[in-house]
């Protein structure tokens, strides 16, 4: 492998506390090294920013529902230019739900190298892996969903933690999953009967368990299994006015639980797309931000992390494992509605959505995301996402960086809103003059999410020994004052190196890279009861045989990278 | 279908038209004899048999396959899918004509100008 020296860039690395010092970064054999004599390649990064490759902790980029989003929206291909086949670049199209090729190229253009697919229905795991395998360049991992799984509901209801842990370890192994995702705990199972759980104490029909028990139980199991990532939660009542009380109730469940892992992770709960969960008011008429209340809680509780789910004010395609939410969203906008309920496990829904600047609710949603990120005290615990493509497409991250880094850019948007006064009135955004620094942006997009995922020792930073994922942006923090340049530069990385291989050279894709896929293999104490339960349940209730359920690592994964954990008690 | 489309079984199961007895009587044909079915697009010789899943008055049924596809409307009306069902046809006796095998039928039709 080639050795590379990146010279003279403004290096920003929160892992080492480096804040824009002019430094060289050396790469050899796929890793960052201290120094290097006679590099094979030298990159002159003078006047440019050098950061670790970006890490996206929550994005819907591969799998069954993403592909429904693609195929049922041919119009989405018309919203942007369909890039032609060129050299080693595959043809690449799609706007809010790009094809796997375009997904990889656009992440690469933004300098991202690690992306977590945030919701994998276990029965569809093979599909998710096939898409990830076909996605070039970026390293990926997928989080299977557990919050409505019949085994989990049953074990947790009876307080059988050992059994729940053994089952979850088995499912992670079978689906080649990375961690525990929980979407609308209990609510999606209720949706199988057309119902929902809107508070953490709404009982799940038939199973007679509450979301409170599910969330607490899953956090406990997560630590019992010493997983690299914490519970990754999309709580109940998403997207509804007044839901912030449900969110606070849910966050409080983390109190008293201690992280237990060897991966440097310090949180026990990651709450995703928190923007969608920080709403006040009782109806859409008196809808308002409660971002401050929720962020105050997170600021004072170090065992909680969050990503924002910024609304980008675009036409997009919403897709979530929260089936009932999509049904209700469709009742609001009357565009097309797709839904898939998955036997014994989970469900999902998909609805196109237009976040319009002319609609005040959309404006307030936009404000809440920014308000929360600007009120956050520790950006190692608050991450930049759009819940792609739910609040907006991921390739808008550079625009969000601009908004976060420039009060003027925010005011420019507010000024174009039809209901500017009303929007200003319903959140505190207008009164915040904070402008984030590149250092804080690097925390939100690299160091922070990498740490929360338990990947902090290999990615998200520039420490010698770490995987050489490095982005070089054509942005000079000393001389640049135009906020538009932020958006442009962070959409057009000049160089991208992934695992020591040059992917972007002078802005051109020169390699499809050698992506890898993480998964977690936890050894637990042999548990005959759970083995029997699994066998019986497959025979009686599944429509796929147990022996045809496990994802074949060699066929369906590119460069599988297994994280081995011993959780034998 | 899965035992070989070049085989006689395929012709026997798909080179047919199923009709109600009343329709057979009306058309002046005999069941289990060959008939000529014609639409505005083409004609084909198949064997008339009594409806196995009937009655369906006024409706003739030819299973999916090359015999049916001699007759159907190839217009997709901008959907990509030809109009395989609901083609108006005339059924006439053709006791002396042969039902061609799938391959002979297709090849012969392709050779015709």
């Amino acid at each position: 492998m080639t050795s590379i020296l990146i010279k003279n860039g403004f290096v920003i690395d929160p892992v080492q506390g480096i804040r824009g010092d002019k430094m060289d970064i050396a790469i050899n054999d796929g890793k960052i090294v201290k120094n290097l004599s006679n590099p094979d390649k030298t990159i002159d990064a003078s006047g440019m920013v050098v950061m670790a490759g970006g890490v996206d902790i929550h994005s819907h980029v591969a799998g069954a529902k993403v592909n429904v989003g693609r195929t049922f929206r041919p119009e989405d291909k018309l919203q942007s230019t369909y890039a032609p086949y060129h050299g080693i670049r595959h043809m690449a199209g799609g706007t809010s739900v790009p094809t796997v090729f375009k997904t990889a190229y656009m992440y690469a253009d933004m300098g991202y190298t690690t992306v977590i697919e945030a919701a994998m229905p276990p029965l569809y795991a093979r599909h998710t892996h096939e898409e990830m395998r076909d996605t070039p360049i970026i390293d990926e991992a997928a989080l299977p969903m557990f919050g409505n799984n019949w085994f989990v509901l049953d074990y947790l209801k009876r307080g059988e933690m050992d059994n729940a842990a053994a089952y979850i370890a088995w499912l992670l192994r079978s689906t080649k999953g990375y961690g525990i995702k929980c979407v609308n705990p209990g609510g999606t199972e209720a949706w199988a009967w057309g119902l929902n759980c809107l508070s953490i104490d709404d009982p799940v029909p038939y199973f007679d368990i509450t979301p409170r028990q599910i969330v607490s139980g899953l956090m406990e199991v997560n630590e019992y299994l010493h997983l690299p990532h914490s519970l990754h939660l999309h709580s109940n009542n998403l997207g509804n006015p007044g839901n912030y009380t449900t969110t606070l109730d849910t966050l409080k469940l983390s109190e008293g639980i201690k992280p237990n892992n060897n991966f440097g992770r310090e949180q026990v709960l990651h709450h995703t797309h928190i923007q969608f969960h920080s709403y006040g008011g009782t109806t859409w008429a008196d809808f308002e931000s409660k971002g401050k209340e929720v962020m105050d809680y997170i600021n004072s509780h170090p065992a909680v992390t969050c990503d924002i789910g910024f609304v980008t004010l675009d036409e997009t395609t919403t897709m979530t494992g929260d089936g009932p939410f999509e049904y209700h969203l469709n009742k609001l906008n009357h565009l097309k509605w797709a839904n898939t309920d998955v036997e014994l496990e989970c469900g999902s829904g998909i609805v196109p959505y237009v976040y319009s600047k002319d609609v005040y609710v959309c404006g307030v949603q936009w404000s809440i995301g920014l308000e929360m990120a600007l009120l956050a005290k520790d950006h190692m615990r608050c991450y930049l996402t759009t819940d792609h493509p739910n609040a907006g497409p991921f390739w808008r991250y550079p625009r969000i960086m601009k908004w976060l880094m420039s009060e003027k850019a925010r005011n420019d948007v507010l000024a174009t809103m039809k209901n500017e006064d009303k929007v200003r009135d319903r959140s505190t955004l207008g009164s915040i003059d904070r402008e984030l620094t590149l250092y804080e942006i690097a925390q939100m997009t690299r160091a922070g999410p990498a740490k929360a995922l338990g990947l902090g020792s290999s990615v998200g930073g520039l420490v010698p020994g770490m995987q050489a994922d490095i982005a070089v942006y054509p942005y000079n923090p000393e001389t640049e004052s135009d906020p538009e340049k932020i958006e442009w530069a962070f959409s057009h990385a000049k160089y991208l190196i992934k695992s020591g291989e040059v992917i972007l050279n002078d802005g051109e894709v020169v390699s499809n890279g050698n992506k890898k896929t993480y998964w977690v293999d936890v050894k637990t104490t042999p548990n005959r009861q759970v083995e029997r339960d699994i066998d019986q349940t497959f025979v009686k209730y599944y429509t796929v045989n147990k022996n045809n359920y496990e994802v074949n690592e060699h066929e369906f994964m590119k460069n599988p990278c297994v994280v081995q954990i011993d959780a034998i008690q | 279908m899965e035992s070989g489309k070049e085989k006689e079984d395929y012709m026997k199961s798909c080179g047919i038209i199923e009709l109600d007895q009343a329709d057979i009587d009306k058309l002046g044909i005999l069941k289990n004899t060959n008939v000529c079915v014609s639409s505005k697009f083409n004609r084909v010789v198949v064997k008339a048999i009594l409806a196995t899943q009937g009655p369906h008055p006024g409706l003739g049924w030819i299973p999916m396959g090359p015999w049916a596809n001699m007759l159907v409307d190839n217009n997709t009306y901008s959907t990509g899918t030809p109009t395989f069902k609901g083609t108006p046809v005339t059924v006439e006796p053709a006791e002396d004509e042969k039902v061609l095998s799938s391959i002979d039928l297709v090849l012969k039709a392709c050779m015709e100008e």
Partner: protein
Amino acid sequence: MSKRLTDIICPFCGTLCDDIEVEVSDDGKQILEVYNSCAIGSEKFLHAQSPDRITRPRMKQEDGSWKETTYEEAAKYTAKILCDAKKPLMYGWSSTSCEAQSTGHMIAEQVGGVLDNTATVCHGSTLIAMQDVGIPSCTLGEVKNRADRIIFWGCNPAHAHPRHMSRYSIYSRGYFTGKGSKSRKIIVVDPRPTDSASLADEYIQVEQGRDYELLSALRAALRGAQLPDKVSGVTKEKIYEIVDILKGGRFVVIFFGMGVTHSLGKNHNIDMAIALTADLNNYTKASIIAMRGHYNVTGSGQVLGWQFGFPFCVDLSRGFARYNPGETSSNDLLMRGEVDGCLVVGSDPGSHFPIASVKKIHDIPTVCIDPHTTPTTAVSTCHVPVAIVGIEVGGSCYRMDNVPIESRKVVDPPAGMLTDAEFLGLVLKEVNHIKGVAE
């Protein structure tokens, strides 16, 4: 001593049964018996062993006779016709694995081919309807465990998906449906009183081609609107009765097939069926599932979807992907004479396209990759027999409810035969060579 292989996937229909057991000879070469499968499925496994099977590629001669050739020569020929053509049609993909599809797509990207699968003559209208109005759906296990109202509309599972009824729908016993068929009410809507209709609690004989009207009437009745005395040959009393049955259920599922997708109205018929399903969700829970035909037509739509963004009739001839059924769809392209070279993989347009389209295929250089002799191979200039996916080679497949299942290898193919993925790999190599692309 023979041995019994379990958990085998049946590569016949979209039901994609994965509980087949196959008895093979000790040397693993001969299939002796097939268990659990339907008659058609068994036939498919046993036919693989037919002694008259073609095992080498062959080229058609001037006089119409066939001459054997090698896979390498066949690959060169295939690459040449695809590269020479201005708009090669690469059709089929439904009876092969996702891996083979993917290789085919990489070829199409380079030669500027049109990729279309058998949905184009099957559930293409369904895919268009999904794009019109969406699709509230579920996996077949939800049907098994929960459904107490099941409609089969314009489909005949008794013949086309024989084990669907016992595995998933009518007879299966699930968590909330412990009494099997007694837990459910079955409604069949079809112009013919099919063998499936004879299993139903209610049979509705709709006039041929009048599905749209009847579906609209059901939607109107659901909203309590007045109906004329008869719609599509069905009395209004019956329509109100059906609506009451559906509303009274806890979980309604509509399965539909060619009866709706092939009749005039096409995607609009399905729009209406989907809208009815969505409406029913205001009263109870309802889902709708297309009875997909070929065992992996669903997979083809999926792979096309994630690689190019469209589920069928994907035209890459301009260097990027375009999709416009009616323009970029196989039959329309053939009828307009736009296609000047053709590759058929794992399907039989010779039998399943209108004859006017078949004639066009006959008139241009066509390579057919298919284990069997079919009317398509008869009109092709080159026939490349390959190992049978799901029997002689494994690979990824997608069930009608989009659930992915990895099919398994049961026996070796006849000596010296390639799989379609391997053959397409050779073609890709040749195409790379012609186009001067580095591997």
